[in-house]
């Protein structure tokens, strides 16, 4: 039965346990890359073909000489207006009956145009399979009326799953609660960006701090079609005219 599903990730509840990363890899049979020993507790680095959930550890100055961590479990946003889907030449990237964005592995030919387009660096290229890969929103689990693995295991309920409209309601209520408690920086990300995301985030800093483009910068690749082609057409006209003039002049000798 068709549903419109969504995630709501409340970063104020994330404790950085990475249970979501582990559950995602377990369920989706992702072997993962060799661990990286980065500056913080982050040992996966980014979202890519093997990391469909990635917990960011963001260090912030508290203003009194101390440092605080912000943690956020990042994931594909399943944008309503998806850049990856827009450019995909093979139509391998589709919108499912759950309104999520899914890469059909039997159709993708590994051209990687979607990777160039995704503004959230979600999609990675799997060298072994030759495919572009990303979070499927646990498509198989959705088809069997199950909660996606990451949301299922999250011990603090930082990751919530449900109908998108319900997630929006929950997110708005939580935002109001935090504002009432004096968390003035709290803001909701994903209501306006790319026609509305299917993964909402409650943030306590500006989006850029979490590697999320601001709403003004959340733009689709196709914005450059008209002006790019126009520049080409003008160049073509001038180039042809130039060649015509050059070829008409009498060659010497």
């Amino acid at each position: 039965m068709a549903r419109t599903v969504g995630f709501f990730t409340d970063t104020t509840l994330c404790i950085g346990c990475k249970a979501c990363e582990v559950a995602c890899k377990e369920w989706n049979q992702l072997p993962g890359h060799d661990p990286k020993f980065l500056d913080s507790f982050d040992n996966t680095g980014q979202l890519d073909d093997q990391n469909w959930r990635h917990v960011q550890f963001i260090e912030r100055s508290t203003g009194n000489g101390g440092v605080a961590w912000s943690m956020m479990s990042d994931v594909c946003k399943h944008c309503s207006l998806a850049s990856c889907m827009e450019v995909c030449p093979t139509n391998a990237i589709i919108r499912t009956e759950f309104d999520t964005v899914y890469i059909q592995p039997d159709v993708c030919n590994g051209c990687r145009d979607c990777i160039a387009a995704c503004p959230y660096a979600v999609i990675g290229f799997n060298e072994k399979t030759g495919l572009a890969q990303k979070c499927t929103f646990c498509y198989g689990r959705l088809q069997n009326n199950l909660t996606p693995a990451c949301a299922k295991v999250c011990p603090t309920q930082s990751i919530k799953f449900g109908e998108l409209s319900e997630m929006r309601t929950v997110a708005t209520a939580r935002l109001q609660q935090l504002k009432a408690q004096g968390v003035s920086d709290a803001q909701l990300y994903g209501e306006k960006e790319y026609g509305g995301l299917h993964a909402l985030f409650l943030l306590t800093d500006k989006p850029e701090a979490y590697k999320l483009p601001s709403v003004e910068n959340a733009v689709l690749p196709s914005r450059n079609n008209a002006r790019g082609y126009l520049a080409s057409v003008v160049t073509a006209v001038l180039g042809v005219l130039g060649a015509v003039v050059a070829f008409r002049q009498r060659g010497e000798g």
Partner: protein
Amino acid sequence: MPQHFVAPPLWAWYIVWYFFLGGLAGGAYLLGTLLRLNGDPRDEGVARLAFLVAFPAVVICPILLTLDLGHPLRFWHMLINSRTGGLNFKYWSPMSVGAWALLIFSFFVTVSFIEALFGAGWTRHSAARSIAGGLSGAFGHLFMVVGSLFGLFVAGYTGVLLSVSNQPVWSDTWALGGLFLASGLSVAAATLAILARSRADAVSTERKLSRADRFFVVLEILLLAAFFVTLGTLAGRLFAPRWIVLWVLVALGIVAPLVLNRVSGPGRLGSPGLAAFLVLLGGLALRIVLIFGAQM
């Protein structure tokens, strides 16, 4: 400054060479057409060379694109929907449009190549004779003009393809399509100028090509200026120390036709040839730095 949090698509050498050869093929076809339609009888030899050059370039292009795919045997998914069996065509996706344009342009190039082979006396096959006969007169002219339009598209859409993304540099400018097209025309003129040097009857054609090339590099200079202006401070990432040598080659490829061709003459043999060679190197260097530089 626009925000970018994207991952690079890891397009590398196959794409660099495709962009270079696509520009060469499209430019050569156009110049061959214009030499025939707009030149004099002495230009026919080089016009034929243009069609002969466009063919191998355009044959290599789909091979490079296929090798670049993660699943090369699924190259046909670019054109046909493997689920429905219908055609895949998305006018808003330059990669989709480009796949079709390359296929159609290949048809024009192949037919013109066979006609050129026949015209050069390299084949007397009846099919080649029929094609050459069919392309004589007004229909042949129309055929070349339509083929040239596809050639222009193939030479320039690659820049638009880069821009229609969310990658830093590529998506922050509107100039790449025009820049690749101007560079492709310049590369094609330089290639034909080099080849024309092997023909005793092509001295005047070589000079015409050099004149055209000077115009193309002026266009290229203007578009490079537009490119840097639109990028603003983002352009800085293309000037990391590792790219400096390539930018020097780009500059030489632009300056050479303006300077060397002018000072050439009796006693300075080789300058136009050197200029053309530098144009080719510059055209390749431009694509290398724009493709690799933006992905670093």
